[in-house]
């Protein structure tokens, strides 16, 4: 008879997962701590560090900058990546494999190399320390994320929906607006969220090309690490973690809701 002892390996997997999750069990309690320095477990709890995070200009300005840069990056990335994803999935053209490779390359090149590249290149273009420079750099690095999510969604798109619309006399543009776009909306939402998080999170390039007035949140956090471990850091970290939680949870909820509402045309 086939028997397999699964308990030990399952237990091992759970232990490793606990290890993976461990940082969050530290960062979140730390953000409510009364300790003036890095101390764990916390000696007491209060909300003071959140209050400072949301009122101290040293933290509110970077937060504001990160949001502006994140939104700019999201819009620009989607505007560039969405049509390219359509071309990659629906058309055959010369150099398609090369284009696909080029679009994925920013994922492979180390960020420090790009940081040096932008530092000198944007220096010539007078874009160092500007929102524009950061948005352009982050857009470039986010392109693979957006392309991967959008092409995956497009590949599973049932083109019979468009053919049916055309058969019923709909013009291409109307079909696109009434059929294609609504079906792909969740994919755009997911791609947008992940691009935003990607930009919101990016540290190395921001470290080198953002300036005093365009400091991003990760850069402020990094400097705060180096100088003195200001416990406001843990409030900042918790806010970042919550943003990720939302970004991961929202698509899951959207998918669940959509799965219940729409009966798949193929099933």
């Amino acid at each position, binding site marked *: 008879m086939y028997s397999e002892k699964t308990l030990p390996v399952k237990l091992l997997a759970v232990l490793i997962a606990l290890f993976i999750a461990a940082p969050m069990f530290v960062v979140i309690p730390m953000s409510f701590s009364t300790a003036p320095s890095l101390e764990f477990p916390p000696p007491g709890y209060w909300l003071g560090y959140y209050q400072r995070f949301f009122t101290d200009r040293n933290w509110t300005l970077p937060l504001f900058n990160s949001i502006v840069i994140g939104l700019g990056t999201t819009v620009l990335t989607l505007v560039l990546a969405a049509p390219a994803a359509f071309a990659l999935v629906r058309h055959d053209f010369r150099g398609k494999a090369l284009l696909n490779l080029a679009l994925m390359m920013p994922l492979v090149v180390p960020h420090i190399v790009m940081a040096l590249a932008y530092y000198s290149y944007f220096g010539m273009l007078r874009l160092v320390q500007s929102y524009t420079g950061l948005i352009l750099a982050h857009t470039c690095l986010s392109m693979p994320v957006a392309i991967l999510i959008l092409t995956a969604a497009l590949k599973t798109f049932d083109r019979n929906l468009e053919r049916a619309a055309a058969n019923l006399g709909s013009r291409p543009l109307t079909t696109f607006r009434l059929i294609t776009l609504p079906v792909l909306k969740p994919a755009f939402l997911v791609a947008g969220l992940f691009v935003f998080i990607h930009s919101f999170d990016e540290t*190395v390039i921001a470290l080198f090309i953002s300036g005093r007035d365009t400091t991003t949140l990760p850069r402020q956090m990094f400097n705060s690490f180096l100088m003195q471990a200001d416990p406001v850091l843990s409030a900042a970290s918790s806010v970042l973690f919550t943003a990720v939680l939302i970004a991961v949870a929202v698509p899951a909820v959207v998918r669940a809701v959509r799965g219940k509402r729409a009966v798949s045309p193929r099933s």
Partner: protein
Amino acid sequence: MGSSVSRLLRGPAVLYLPAALFLLVFFLVPLFNVAWMSFTEPDTGFGNYTAFFASSFDVGVLLNTFKTAAIVTLTSLIFAYPVAYVAARYGGALGSILLLVVTLSFWTSFLVRTYAWMVILGVKGPVTAALIMLGWSPPPQILFTTFASTFAMTHLLMPFMILTLYAVMRRIDGTYMRAAAGLGAKPLKAFTSIYLPLSLPGIANGSVLVFITCLGFYVTPVLLGSPRDKMIAGRIGDEIEQMLNFGGASAMAIVLLVATLGLFALYSRFFGLDKLWR
């Protein structure tokens, strides 16, 4: 000429050209500029490269980078494998929870997780407290050592490894293992002769991804590591910020880039590029 342009613009080029031009101007040109600087700043020639490879310190940094990447890759593979295996093979509620934890961790900022290890491994952290309780006095310095940064990098990259392993393992047919057992193979034998070989593409994918990412790591070694044994990304940062030595920094960046792309090309010859992120 004019007609060929208008013909081009009626095809899919309209769709992909904006992205392609953007990448050309804001990705490829800046990279070529780095290569250009490495041969021209401050003097024309191979000076920056000969200086780099003549410096025993810099060659040591390069070797240390490769060594660290190898250790991190191997360790994260050993720990990632059981998690991916359980999630892929047994699924269910446990599998979903494991994947959720891994995905959340995957998307959580490197900086946030590095900060967490700073607290956990710090002087007032739980690890030091436990060591003191066990009678280790004075407690050893953990933070700002090679161990701390290697350990944290392993933790940071494990989700990459798990997700790539899982992507391959999910497609392994579970009935093979039952067939092996039916033919009399003990579980370990069935695993080593059936499951492990079938999961090899996942191991290759994950290892290349982790190794390449680790080669370029900047934040964690700078914050948690020992200043005595640097990694190359940290050296590049120093050259830019402290020395303003753009030629030297560019040469190092090109060495790092060539190593990364070389590994990547070697890998994609054998496995196909498209499999890496699926």
